């Protein structure tokens, strides 16, 4: 059965939040981010608060333009000038934090490095001796299922394989938290499901704390223990959905009845937001058209 938790009592909520924060590895507390635009000040993220416990897989889902990527950049320490606080293990994030490993939406392998050299990159930066770093990199290449491709260049690999190289490279830095921003967005559905399997398998093996930012409901339900649904602009947390599907999971779960229920439940939350986003885009285009004509 689908279980949706939406707290109503603020006092209870605050008390439970304080208790949860104490055991959380990542705490995102009351984040607000504004951008100056030609049309005025735009609030991209509005009072977003949540936390992630060690070993937990949390998904953040929302329609395009809800501030997901802004949130990703804030948590990853790539964006400043916001209100609120992000902390990792009690330590405030003021810039890129060594405990956070990031995987980006765009293809981000280094085209001038082979697979093994890409994966060994963070170890090279850390000053690890060559033999040792190559050995360690080989382990992570094997973990993402790319053994045999160590000496290939990214241009010789498929899109899915390149994303696995990025995943292995980030994992090689042994981050406490894996932060992923729509990592499979550019891939086809089948590859996306199979890569989801790979991520689940790795998460199971490494007990890796993961925060996945996505707009894909299937992907979020397949992978996450908990899904935070965001509203369209300004991005606020609308609802938290606990995914009580059994673990270990695989892509086979997408055909189960419970999976379908979760997808339907999240879509009913998202539909209104996505429609708002679409209307907003159309209105912008209409005004732009009027302006040009």
């Amino acid at each position: 059965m689908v279980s949706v938790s939406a707290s109503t009592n603020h006092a209870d909520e605050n008390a439970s939040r304080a208790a949860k924060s104490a055991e959380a590895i990542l705490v995102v507390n009351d984040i607000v981010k504004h951008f100056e635009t030609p049309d005025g000040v735009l609030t991209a993220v509005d009072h977003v608060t949540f936390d992630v416990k060690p070993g937990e897989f949390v998904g953040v889902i929302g329609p395009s333009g809800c501030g997901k990527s802004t949130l990703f950049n804030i948590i990853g320490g790539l964006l400043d000038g916001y209100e609120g606080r992000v902390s990792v293990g009690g330590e405030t994030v003021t810039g890129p934090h060594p405990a956070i490993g990031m995987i980006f939406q765009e293809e981000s392998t280094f085209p001038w490095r082979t697979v093994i050299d890409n994966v060994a990159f963070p170890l090279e930066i850390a000053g690890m001796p060559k033999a040792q770093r190559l050995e360690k990199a080989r382990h992570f290449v094997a973990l993402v299922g790319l053994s045999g491709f160590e000496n290939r260049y990214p241009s010789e690999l498929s899109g899915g394989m390149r994303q696995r190289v990025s995943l292995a490279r980030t994992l090689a830095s042994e981050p406490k938290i894996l932060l992923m921003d729509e990592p499979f967005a550019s891939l086809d559905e089948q590859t996306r499901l199979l890569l989801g399997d790979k991520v689940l398998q790795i998460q199971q093996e490494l007990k890796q704390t993961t925060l996945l930012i996505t707009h894909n409901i299937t992907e979020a339900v397949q992978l996450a223990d908990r899904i935070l649904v965001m509203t369209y602009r300004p991005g606020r947390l609308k609802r938290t959905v606990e995914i009580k599907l059994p673990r270990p999971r695989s892509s086979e779960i997408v055909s189960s009845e419970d999976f379908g229920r979760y997808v339907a439940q999240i879509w009913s939350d998202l539909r209104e937001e996505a429609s708002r986003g679409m209307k907003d885009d159309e209105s912008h285009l209409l005004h732009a058209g009027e302006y040009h004509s």
Partner: protein
Amino acid sequence: MTLAALRKGQVFPLVVGIGTLVIIFVAIEALIRINVINRYIVPMPSQILGAFERVIVEEEIPARFWLTFKEALIASTMITIVGISIGVLLFRVNLLRRACETWVAAMASAPTVLMYPLFLVIFGRSMWTIIMMGFVAGLPPVILKTIEGFLGTRRVLINVGKSFNLTSRQLFIKIMFPAALPTIFVGVRLGLIFTLINIVGVEFLINFGGLGQLINDLAERYDLPGTYAAICFVILVSVCFFVFTERVEKWLRPAD
């Protein structure tokens, strides 16, 4: 890939390239022989081929080739080092870039070869006048393409570097420079073309020596087969530099 296919992949383009050249030469030869092309303006390819031995023996080709090659080597080393350095400086200092980029672009299209009297006054009738003329002509494309290369570095690669806590120096050396290299090499190749044209052109103009002077001499003697044979040696210098830059680029960016 089978060995035969590999051979076919490597050999076929070479055969087609040489074959096309031979067909063009045969066609020109035929057109001259049937008087469609005036033989007093364009010599027959067979005459040019026959002139090679004479030009090599009588016109001191090895010494001239070496002089032009040496001038081109010094000038191209200078445009690479100075051009990339200025490009990096203009990339890093935004105000300087906005102030100077248009001027550098204007300099790229200016006929700098006409400045040779000024360089003659500064450096005298020496190899350095020729080198500096080649340097000035080849510098702008290297600067412009270096700026373009760094500005074109994909944001996500920089973010990857930042997420791994790279210092700005590491970010520059480990990510931005390798990412910009293909564009920088386009600039270096363009710079080489301008440098070589100017070097041979100024050798021709100031009658100092090298292959440019030889072309001038032979043209004034109306030795057209010899003139074209000398031009072939200039092309050989150009080929040497292009093969060299290609090798260096392949060494630095083996994936491309």
